[in-house]
């Protein structure tokens, strides 16, 4: 297996770091920035208002100690760390965000946003906890409209129907391009490793020119496919094909992917919000009311903060089949109540489908890498 990333990957793996400078330049050129935390946040609204939006979910434990001056220790590391970056002003994206949009997703985030509101301008959308009834759909539709109004007011812009429809089209194209990229790993063996796939998926969020991003992702997909068709095989066909599910993966939690891929496995697909959870659904471009289309699409996302979370089971089923998955490994973050409680449902569901399953609970520290490796290796050895 090649240890060097192809050149094209470099622009993605460095995107987050290089994005700092890019963002500064964008701000200096007069652009405004909205920071977001969640896959439920409708990015189309920001794009339509010609704003740059960037994900603020932190993936490093660097600021956790500082966050713990204010937040309790027994809290999700993503929440602590993200808050910590605002508190210490260490994250340029947080720093440059003119406004932050959060949702009432999990309790931890909900309460953290109150404290974040003391440091930055925060707009909170009230996300329903159910997905299928008219009441919840209407509630979310109203929240999307409220967001639109707030953005227009805050940034002194008018979002026309043309703006929003074009934004919908573009964001759908982004989803399609990233999904097609991910689908390369349906091949047996996959053309790239899970870590390489993650670099593109994760890095793509830090590419702020949407049209350029779509082009780059399409080009890299084409190149990988061409090389594969020409016989290039960088991944050993004997590696066990693993689906990763659970909490978002990136940065500090890449250790889980490394543990899998250093122990005889290759991650072929991520069900979590780093990938499929946010890529599988498109906004209906034919729906007359674009805001209705946006609200309906986003509300469908299958996250453990919803009750029940049936969509996750459906998505897992189809991904396991499409990607010819040998085993499912879940990563939950310490103190993530919703995912940790949902583990039991996922276990029962996968047992009924006779799909091997293991859950790994971890945080942002690097002290448990050996333990993760032993468990991942044992799981893969059990796949026989």
């Amino acid at each position, binding site marked *: 297996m090649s240890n060097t990333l192809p050149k094209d990957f470099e622009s993605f793996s460095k995107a987050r770091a290089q994005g700092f400078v890019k963002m500064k330049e964008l701000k200096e050129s007069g652009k405004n920035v909205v920071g977001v935390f969640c896959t439920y946040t409708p990015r189309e609204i920001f794009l339509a208002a010609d704003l740059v939006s960037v994900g603020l979910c932190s993936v490093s434990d660097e600021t956790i100690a500082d966050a713990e001056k204010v937040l309790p220790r027994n809290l999700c590391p993503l929440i602590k760390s993200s808050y910590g970056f605002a508190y210490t002003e260490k994250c340029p994206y947080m720093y440059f965000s003119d406004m932050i949009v959060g949702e009432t997703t999990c309790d931890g985030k909900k309460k953290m946003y109150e404290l974040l509101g003391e440091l930055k301008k925060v707009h909170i959308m009230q996300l329903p906890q159910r997905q299928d009834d008219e009441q919840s759909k209407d509630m979310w539709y109203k929240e999307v409209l409220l967001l639109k109004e707030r953005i227009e007011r805050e940034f002194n812009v008018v979002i026309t129907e043309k703006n929003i429809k074009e934004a919908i089209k573009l964001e759908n194209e982004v989803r399609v391009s990233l999904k097609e990229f991910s689908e390369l790993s349906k091949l047996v063996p996959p053309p790239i490793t899970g870590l390489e796939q993650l670099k593109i998926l994760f890095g793509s969020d830090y590419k702020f020119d949407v049209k350029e991003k779509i082009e780059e992702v399409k080009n890299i997909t084409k190149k990988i496919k061409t090389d594969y068709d020409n016989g290039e095989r960088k991944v050993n066909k004997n590696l066990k094909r693993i689906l990763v599910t659970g909490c978002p993966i990136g940065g500090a939690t890449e250790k889980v992917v490394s543990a899998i891929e250093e122990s005889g496995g290759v991650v072929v697909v991520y069900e979590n919000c780093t990938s499929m959870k946010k890529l599988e659904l498109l906004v209906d471009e034919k729906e007359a009311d674009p805001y209705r289309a946006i609200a309906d699409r986003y509300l469908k996302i299958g996250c453990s903060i919803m009750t029940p979370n049936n969509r996750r089971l459906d998505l897992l089923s189809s991904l396991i089949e499409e990607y010819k998955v040998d085993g499912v490994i879940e990563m939950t973050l310490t103190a993530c109540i919703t995912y940790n409680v949902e583990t039991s449902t996922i276990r029962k569901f996968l047992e009924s489908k006779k799909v091997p399953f293991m859950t790994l609970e971890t945080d942002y520290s690097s002290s*448990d890498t*050996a*333990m993760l490796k*032993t*468990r991942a*290796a*044992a799981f893969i*050895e*059990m796949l*026989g």
Partner: protein
Amino acid sequence: MNMSDITESKYFVGIDLGSTMCKAVLFLENNLVDKEIVKTGYNHVASARDVFSTLLKRNNVDEKNIIVSSTGYGRELIDFASKSYTEITCHSLGALHLDSSIQAVIDIGGQDMKAIKIEDGKAQNFIMNDKCAAGTGRFLAMALEKLEIQFEDIDKHVEIESSIKINNTCAVFAESEIISLIAQNKNRYDIMSGVIHSIALKVSQMISKFELSKDKNILLTGGLYASDIIRQIIENTIKYRVITSKYSQFAGSIGAAILTYNNHIKK
């Protein structure tokens, strides 16, 4: 496989490099020939080399005829092993080699403890506690030291029932609790029984996630196997049949050797 491989018998060495003890076994084909155990020293790899060369010298075996595999916490440090496997896989296969009818393995190591559910001749599920000393050999060692009891004396003086309950699961806090019990002039063997009950309780919590049968045996591996009182207290606490083998401490290294043998004959 060429002709010379068929006629020449192969030796297999499985090395289980644990954090506390380094165990190794020598197999001739799939028969256990010899075993060796040393304390894992500061230089882990040296301990592994130590047991390896002892086995070779004692049995007059040429290094050329051996395939070495490793397991345990230090499995990847052993550069002279051709393959390494996790202790979960090795303990399962090793335990099955010792008793093919078992339904699970409970391994209480020096610094960790694990339970492995066995089904269809292999590991099907496992639970590990490697985050703290509760329920591990370290916990027991601390108690033995504080109470000034030798491990070998447990079976002579410690009773299965104890009037003392150790309330703290954390080894550090439990140590304070033991000291205060000593100060209250409680009987040392009674305290020891309480400590063993505490370990058994942790085992019970660990295996509560498995679906087990009352009609099958669970094999206890790891250094604590040598005490029948410990075995009985665990059995009474978890309410499933617990057995040991005189090779219990070598289950991991046996599994590594067997696994390598099985892979070798497949070729």
